[in-house]
C-alpha cells in the first residue's frame, strides 16, 4: 500500500514537470535559454577589444585630431561586424579555430610564417597591455618595478591555476567603467551638431601622423588577434549551426558596443584635451578627458579603467596566442596538461608574459608610445589576416551553403584593399618626411 502511495507521489511531480517542460520548450523561455547559452563570445571579445592599446589610441586620436577621425567609426563598425561575423560563422560551421583552418588549407609554410608574424605582433600587444598596467598604477603612485612583476605573476597564476573563469566576470563588470566616458562626453558639452556632421562626412588629410592614426584606429578596433580569439571562443562554446543566428546578434551587439565606447572616448578627449590644446604625453594627461565627470578624481577613475582593461587583455592575449600558434603547428595545447606534455605551449605562454613585462622594466621605456605603435602594427597586419579569412570563408567545400554573400565580400575585400593602400601611403609619407 505504502509503496503504491510512494509511486503515486512520484508520478505527480513528473506530470507537472513534463507540462512545465512543454511550456518551456515551445515558448519564449526556450529561446531565452538558447540565447543565454550561445551569447558571450562576441560581447566578451568586444570588451577585450578596448584594451590598453585601444584606450590609448582613441584618446590620442581625439586629443590630437579632435573630431576629424570620427567619420572613420561608421565604416569601421561595418567592417568589424563583417569580419567578426565571418570568423564566428567559420567557427560554428567548421567547428575549427582559425589557425587550424589555415594550417589545414594552406599547409605548413604559410602557417609558419603567419604564426611567426602574429607572435611578433602579439608580443608587441602584450607589451602594450603591460604598459597599460604600469601607466595606470603609476598614476596611483606605484612604481612599475613593483607593479609589473606582480601583474605578470598574477596573470600567469590566473591561467595556470584555473582561476581565470571566475575573474572574467569581475573584469566584465569593471568594463562598466566605459560609461564614465559616455557621461563625461555629454558633460563636456561638445558641439553635437558638429560631432554628428563629422561622424558622417569623411575628411582626409595628407599628413603622415594623420594616416598613422587612421591605421592605428582601424588596427585597434579590428585587431587581428581578436579574430583568432573570437573564432576559438565560438568553437569552444559548441554553438550549433541551428543556433547560429543568436551568435550573430551577440557579435553585432558586441561590435556596436565596442565602437560606441571608442566614439565616446574620442569625443570626450576632443571636447576636453583637444579643445584646450593639451597634448597627451603621459597616460595621466589622457585622464583629463574624464574631468567633466570626475573633476579632480578623473586621474583615479581613468587609472582604474585603464588598469582593468589592460589586465583583462593581458590575461587573454598571451594565452590565446600560445593556443593558436601551437594548434597551427600541431603542438600539444591545454592548461590542464603538465609542462612536459606540452612544453611548446607552456614555453610560449610563459615567454610572452616574461618578455612582455620585461620590456616595460627598461628605464624610460615609452609606455604610451608602445601602446599606440602596437595598434598601428595591428592595422598593418590586418589586411593580410583578412585575406586568409576571406579565402577560407569562400570555400564551399568547407562552408557549404554558408559561404560569404556578395556584399560581405565587397566590404571585406574593400577593407583589405583600403588598409593596404593606407599602409603604403603611410610608409610613403613617413619616408618622405611629411
Amino acid at each position, binding site marked *: 500500500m505504502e509503496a503504491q502511495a510512494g509511486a503515486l507521489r*512520484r508520478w505527480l511531480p513528473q506530470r507537472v514537470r513534463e507540462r512545465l517542460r512543454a511550456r518551456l520548450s515551445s515558448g519564449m523561455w526556450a529561446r531565452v535559454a538558447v540565447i543565454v547559452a550561445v551569447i558571450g563570445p562576441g560581447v566578451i571579445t568586444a570588451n577585450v577589444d578596448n584594451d590598453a592599446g585601444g584606450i590609448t589610441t582613441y584618446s590620442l586620436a581625439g586629443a590630437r585630431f579632435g573630431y576629424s577621425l570620427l567619420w572613420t567609426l561608421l565604416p569601421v563598425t561595418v567592417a568589424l561586424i563583417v569580419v567578426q561575423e565571418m570568423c564566428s560563422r567559420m567557427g560554428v560551421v567548421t567547428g575549427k579555430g582559425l589557425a587550424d583552418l589555415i594550417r589545414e588549407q594552406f599547409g605548413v609554410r604559410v602557417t609558419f610564417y603567419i604564426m611567426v608574424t602574429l607572435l611578433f605582433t602579439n608580443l608587441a600587444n602584450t607589451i602594450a597591455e603591460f604598459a597599460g598596467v604600469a601607466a595606470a598604477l603609476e598614476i596611483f603612485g606605484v612604481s612599475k618595478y613593483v607593479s609589473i612583476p606582480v601583474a605578470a605573476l598574477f596573470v600567469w597564476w590566473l591561467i595556470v591555476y584555473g582561476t581565470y573563469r571566475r575573474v572574467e566576470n569581475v573584469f566584465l563588470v569593471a568594463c562598466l567603467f566605459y560609461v564614465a566616458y559616455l557621461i563625461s562626453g555629454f558633460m563636456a558639452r561638445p558641439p553635437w551638431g558638429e560631432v554628428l556632421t563629422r561622424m558622417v562626412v569623411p575628411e582626409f588629410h595628407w599628413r603622415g601622423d594623420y594616416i598613422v592614426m587612421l591605421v592605428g584606429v582601424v588596427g585597434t578596433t579590428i585587431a587581428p588577434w581578436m579574430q583568432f580569439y573570437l573564432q576559438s571562443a565560438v568553437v569552444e562554446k559548441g554553438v550549433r549551426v541551428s543556433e547560429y543566428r543568436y551568435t550573430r546578434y551577440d557579435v553585432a551587439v558586441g561590435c556596436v558596443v565596442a565602437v560606441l565606447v571608442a566614439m565616446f572616448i574620442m569625443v570626450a578627449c576632443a571636447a576636453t584635451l583637444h579643445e584646450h590644446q593639451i597634448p597627451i604625453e603621459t597616460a595621466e594627461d589622457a585622464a583629463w578627458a574624464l574631468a567633466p565627470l570626475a573633476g579632480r578624481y578623473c586621474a583615479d577613475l581613468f587609472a582604474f579603467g585603464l588598469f582593468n582593461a589592460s589586465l583583462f587583455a593581458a590575461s587573454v592575449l598571451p594565452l590565446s596566442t600560445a593556443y593558436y600558434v601551437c594548434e597551427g603547428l600541431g603542438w600539444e595545447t591545454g592548461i590542464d596538461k603538465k609542462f612536459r606534455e606540452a612544453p611548446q605551449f607552456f614555453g610560449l605562454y610563459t615567454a610572452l608574459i616574461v618578455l612582455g613585462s620585461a620590456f616595460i622594466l627598461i628605464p624610460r621605456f615609452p609606455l604610451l608610445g608602445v601602446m599606440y605603435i602596437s595598434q598601428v602594427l595591428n592595422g598593418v597586419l590586418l589586411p593580410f589576416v583578412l585575406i586568409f579569412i576571406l579565402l577560407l570563408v569562400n570555400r564551399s567545400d568547407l562552408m557549404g551553403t554558408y559561404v560569404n554573400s556578395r556584399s560581405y565580400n565587397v566590404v571585406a575585400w574593400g577593407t583589405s584593399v583600403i588598409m593596404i593602400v593606407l599602409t603604403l601611403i603611410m610608409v610613403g609619407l613617413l619616408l618622405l618626411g611629411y
Partner: protein
Amino acid sequence: MSDATLQLNESPLIAETQHSFVFFSTLLDKPVHDANGILVGRLSDLAVSVAYMFPPVVAFVVQRGRWEKFALTGRWSDVADIGGTAIRLTVGIQALTPSKMDNPGEVLIRDVLLDKQIVDMNGAKVVRVNDLHFLKIGACELRLVHVDAGTRGLVRRMGWEPRLDGLLRRVAPQAQYLSAERLIRWNYVQPLSLDDKAQSIRLSVMQRQVKELHPADIAEILQDLDTHGRATMFRSLDPETAADALAEVDDPRIQTQLLETVSQEAAADILDEMPPDEAADLLHELPPETSTALLHKMEAEEALDVRELLTYPPDTAGGMMTTELVALPADLTVEETFGRLRNEAPDVENIYYLFVVDTEHRLVGVLNLRQLILAQPTAHLHAIMIKDPARVHHTDSRDSVAEIVEKYDLLALPVVDDGDVLVGMITVDDVVSHIANQAWKRKLGH
C-alpha cells in the same frame, strides 16, 4: 619508432626485396616526366588504398600549368622510377586522366591526412600530421607505414632539415631533436576526414585498436577533437564502446552533442548499453521531444528503469541513484544467494553490496560480498547481514548523500522512499564525480 620499424622489416611480405623509407614531403612537388622525357608537371598528391593494413600507393596526381593549374591523374603502376631528381613514368602524357580521381576505398592523402588532425590510438591523443612515411619496396612500390607528428616532420616540411641537422650536429650533437622521431604506425592511426565509404573500410581494418582503448581515453580524445572530428570518431564506435565512452565524458553539452551526431536508433542502442542512472542524466539534458522519442526506441526494460529515474530531480539522491541493484529476501541462505547472483547479477553494474528486503520490499539490511563469501553456506542472510543500515531518502540533496558516503566509508548507499521501500542505490563513483565536479566548479567559479 625503432621497434615499429623493426617488426615491419621482419614481415615476410618484404623480406626478400630491397627496401628503404621515403617521406611524402620529399616526393611532393617533384617534377614528373613521361616516357618520352616530357615534363608533365609536379606531383601534388598520392592516392592510397585503405583496405590494406599498410596501404599501398595506387595513383598519383600531377599539377600542370603555372598560372591556370589543372590536375592529371595516373595509376601508380605506370611509374618507372622515383629515386632521381624527377619521377619518371612508363607511359606518355596522353595516358593520364585529366581530373582528380575518385575511386571508392582510395583516398588522396594530402586531402585527408597531411596537415590534418588524426587520432593516435596507441598514445590515445589527437595529433596533427606533419609528414607521411612510406616503405619503398623495389624501385617504386610504396606503402604507407607511419604518420609523422613530430617537430622533425615540421622542420622537414619547411625545407630546413639538412641545414638544421648539420648545425645541431656541430653545436649540440646530443640534442634530443636529432634522434626524436615521432612516427605513429599506420595501424594505430584513425583519420578523421575520410568520406563515409573509406571510413568504414578503414574502420574494419582497425576495429581491434579501438577496442583496446580504455573508455576514459576515448572520452578524452573525443573532448580534444573539434566538432566534426568528434562526430566522425563517435559514429565509428560500436554501441557498447560508445556507451562506455559517453559515460566518461564529463561535459554534458559535449555528451548531448555526441548523441545528436548519430541516428535516433543508434542513440537508443547506446542508451540501452549505459547504466540507467547515466542514461537518465543524459536524457535530462536533451530537449524533451528528443528524449521522449529516444525512450520509445529503447528496449522496453531499460526504458522503464530510465523512465522511473527521470521522475527524480537530478540534484537529489533519486536523481543520482541507479535502479540496477540486487535485493534479496532475508530468509535466503548464503548458498541460494550465490545461485541468485549468478542468474541476476550479470546485468547489474555493482554487486559488492547486496540489499536485504522484506516482503513489502522495505530495506532491512545490507551485506557486502566479503561477508557473503566468508559466511557458512547454510547461514541465512538475516543472521549475517548488517541490520538497519545507513540510507538516504530519494529527496535528500547531493551534498547530504556525499556526507553520508564519506562518513560511513560506503561503496554503495541504499535509497528509500517515504515507506522505507528500497528504490535504488548510489554507488561511490557517482558521489566521487559529484565531489570532483564541485571542486572543478569552484575552480572555474561557476
